[in-house]
């Protein structure tokens, strides 16, 4: 803990002004009468502390990290370097357009690239992450219905496999949600969908390929059904990596889509963010896109705001969203170029199908053995859990001991004891082969020494943590020893 190295009067002296300026123009009653209680440490202590802390993380730069639904692929270092050029870092968000053409040019071109790969009519970059993109998208659906006076639609449909943000976002937009079951083949239960549709339907939120790792084959039919019922289709772009350059949400019939640039466009996950969740829309939703957006009049780039776009669903952040993340995505997109886009889908799909096949050959159970994997796939360890008493969590923790970050566990919830595995296109075959070997070894351990697996991990900085205590005896901030 950083505060343990704190000593009264210690400082990283070079980091603040050498003298303390006068504050007497502020009435003393408004000033604080105690120090703010930050750690008092030297510059070296800070550097040493955080360097050491960093070493306690698994990350893409150190470990295979097949966390399903999260697209943990290589983050090219150039994206960071080039988005961090001194001039770009120094630009104030409210600098006038005369001093923003370079920056705005990047955003504009990124909008165009995203339009092309998604097949949407227009794109706004401003949402800060996927969930904010979802919010923006559903809010646009609502604005659309409202503008048409179609105000009775109060329900958004979500598959039972949907990510938690989908229903949560719908609710933030004032909708109720209704779950649609997934069929045994991994596709949506279209009969159930049909019976759920009605005049109360505002829209449906889908991912395709879905969170169970397969491509929704009847998507065209679904789109027609929803449209016929007067609803709109929302595309959760979390899995766009699987189809980049292969098939486009716009062509599937979606009206609105968000992208997770921190997934498909490889901006860093940063230990939890920041991301960026641009939204793309079909023509009818175009007026509602969140502002600001960037336009180009043939010679200059211009900001589009509430003034130019009075029907906008509004603003989502104080400035223009996570600009630095957008720049990283722009650099990435330009590095890939048009051929690179195709390859992302091709090789992420190749890796997933290869890994799935090898794991099935090794005796693991796929949740949807008869389906092609998309860029990810689901294993179910319910057999192991039942027969050996070793569950998915145990496998996950044991993987850490072998130097692999665990795949996503227990999501989607409908598959019992599931592991959602997403290798991504940037991993080499050896890494996949290694994963198979490790999984086989753990399976063997589960058979012969189950306690070893159930007590895992054994080699991490801590052993398994007491989550119950964490929630019950809340300790959320250091308060001195």
């Amino acid at each position: 803990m950083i505060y343990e190295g704190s000593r009264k009067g210690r400082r990283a002296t070079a980091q603040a002004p050498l003298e303390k300026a006068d504050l007497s123009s502020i009435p003393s009653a408004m000033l604080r009468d105690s120090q703010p209680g930050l750690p008092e440490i030297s510059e070296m202590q800070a550097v040493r502390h955080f360097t050491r802390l960093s070493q306690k993380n698994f990350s893409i730069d150190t470990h295979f990290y097949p966390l399903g639904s999260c697209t943990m692929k290589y983050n090219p270092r150039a994206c960071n370097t080039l988005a961090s050029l001194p001039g770009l870092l120094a630009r104030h968000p409210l600098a006038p357009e005369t001093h923003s053409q370079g920056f705005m040019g990047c955003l504009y071109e990124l909008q165009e690239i995203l339009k092309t790969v998604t097949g949407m009519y227009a794109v706004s970059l401003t949402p800060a992450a996927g969930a904010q993109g979802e919010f923006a998208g559903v809010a646009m659906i609502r604005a659309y219905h409202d503008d048409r006076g179609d105000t009775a639609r109060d329900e958004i449909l979500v598959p039972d496999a949907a990510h938690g943000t989908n229903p949560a976002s719908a609710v933030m937009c004032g909708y109720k949600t209704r779950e649609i079951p997934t069929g045994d083949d991994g596709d949506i239960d279209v009969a159930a969908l049909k019976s759920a549709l009605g005049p109360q339907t505002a829209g449906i939120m889908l991912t395709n390929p879905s969170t169970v790792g397969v491509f929704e084959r009847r998507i065209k039919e679904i789109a027609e059904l929803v449209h016929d019922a007067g609803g709109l289709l929302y595309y959760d772009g979390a899995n766009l990596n699987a189809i980049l350059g292969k098939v486009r949400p716009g062509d599937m019939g979606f009206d609105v889509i968000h992208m997770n640039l921190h997934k498909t466009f490889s901006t860093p996950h940063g230990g939890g963010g920041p991301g960026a969740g641009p939204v793309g829309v079909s023509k009818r939703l175009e007026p509602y896109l969140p502002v600001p957006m960037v336009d180009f009049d043939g010679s200059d780039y211009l900001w589009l705001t509430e003034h130019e776009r009075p029907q906008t669903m509004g603003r989502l952040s104080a400035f223009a969203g996570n600009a630095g993340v957008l720049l990283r995505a722009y650099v990435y997109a330009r590095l890939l170029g048009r051929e690179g886009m195709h390859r992302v889908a091709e090789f992420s799909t190749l890796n997933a199908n290869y890994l799935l096949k090898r794991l099935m050959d090794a005796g693991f159970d796929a949740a949807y053995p008869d389906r092609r994997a998309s860029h990810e796939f689901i294993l179910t360890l319910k057999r192991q859990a039942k027969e050996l008493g070793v569950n998915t969590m145990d496998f996950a923790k044991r993987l850490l001991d072998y130097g692999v970050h665990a795949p996503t566990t227990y999501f989607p919830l409908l598959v019992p004891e599931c592991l959602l595995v997403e290798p991504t296109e940037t991993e080499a075959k050896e890494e996949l082969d290694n994963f198979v070997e490790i999984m086989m070894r753990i399976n063997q351990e589960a058979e012969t020494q189950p306690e070893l697996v159930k007590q895992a991990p054994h080699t991490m900085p801590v052993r398994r943590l007491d989550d119950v205590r964490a929630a019950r005896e809340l300790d959320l901030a250091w308060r001195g020893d």
Partner: protein
Amino acid sequence: MPFIPHTEDDIEEMLAAIGVDNIDALFDEIPDELRCGELDAIPPGMSEMELSRLMQARARADGQPLCFIGAGAYDHHIPAAVWELTTRGEFYTAYTPYQAEASQGTLQLLYEYQSMMTALTGMDVSNASLYDGASALAEAVLMAVRANRKSKSKRVLVPRNLHPVYRKVAHTIVRNQQIELVEVAYDSGSGGIDRADLDRYRGEDYAALIIPQPNFFGVLEAVDELTDWAHANGMLAIAVVNPLAMAVLKPAGEWGEQGADICCGEGQPLGAPLASGGPYFGFLCSTQKLVRQMPGRIIGKTVDLDGKPGYALTLQAREQHIRRSKATSNICTNQGLMVTAATIHMSLMGSEGLQRVAAASHANSDKLTHALTSLPGVESLFDGPVFHERVVRLPIAANKALRALAAHNVLGGFDLSDDYPELGDAILVCATELRSEDDIESYRSKLERVIASQVETPCQLKPDW
């Protein structure tokens, strides 16, 4: 093939193992009519070298003007160590610490962040970040409406002197839940919340009162009285603060008798570069009582099987991945890396350092105000005490003046005339600790020329240039 490690041999072996002839066969479940062709509108790939050249040109195109705009984003010194450490691969390329044992670095750091933010704001608990200051305010409003047990109201009082975009964002985010933001006027003399206007809502059922400190004009509010007023009227007090200001101002947790209930704001001044507006991060703190209504990730300290301390995500039952449609918020990915930077930044600054930065920024803004108001016709607008930002009125059209200054590579401030037409040609100016005396003098002298060249009465022209 950039970033793809597959050799020809690899591909062949993998296809053989799968049992297909080519990669395209893996997409055979996609209906043919949906398959897209070439993405011709996307330019071909570039090498890192070519792209470096391009991005350098783009960066150069925007120049590096001398910046006196604040208005929610502040140009502070960031220690070199901050981003060198923050961009270490282990922080930069990890994700949300779902596997706690393999993420103790991020988790401990977030716990330390929560500790520092609560220390700075005087609140009990902090979450691990929201997107930015404006959306954090929206989440605070939603939280207050959920949390205020005494009130059934979906209305919240918002002062007009709160950042105009914050008001817009909050409105965008909360309106679909039928939550109403009701505007409270500001006092045209002091620039603070107009107590008389506020008193119109006395005894009415509102879920919360939003109290900015400082407000958008840089003016300091009478936070103690406002907080007490809110509580006396059954409302929660939502503080919206500049975290740097908290280093020297009375912390939100100590406002009035009981302290603010929720404290949120923009974390950017704590180590995030201006960078065109993001990524920054929103912070959100509250009293212990409200912790279960918090949106976003929260990290708790606990022990492992051996009783050794460790850190983990906690209170996850509030979150979308568990509670789905009943979650406190839809947020998932937050602004982790910015929090990493902020935590390192605060560690390097320490209490004393952060106070010095605040004091220096304040003193510089005072100097700037003096310099500008020494010019004929330029006046300071409000008489309330301020923190490090101030409204001045120009004797010429504000937008023209700012444009002329920009042509001389000075960003002279934020034009208030759109959002506050009642203020006339007013601009909001700020000089952080990074602006030197020379910078301030450069601004003053350029403004002098701009005014002179635009004011019609030639007698105001100074003779010496």
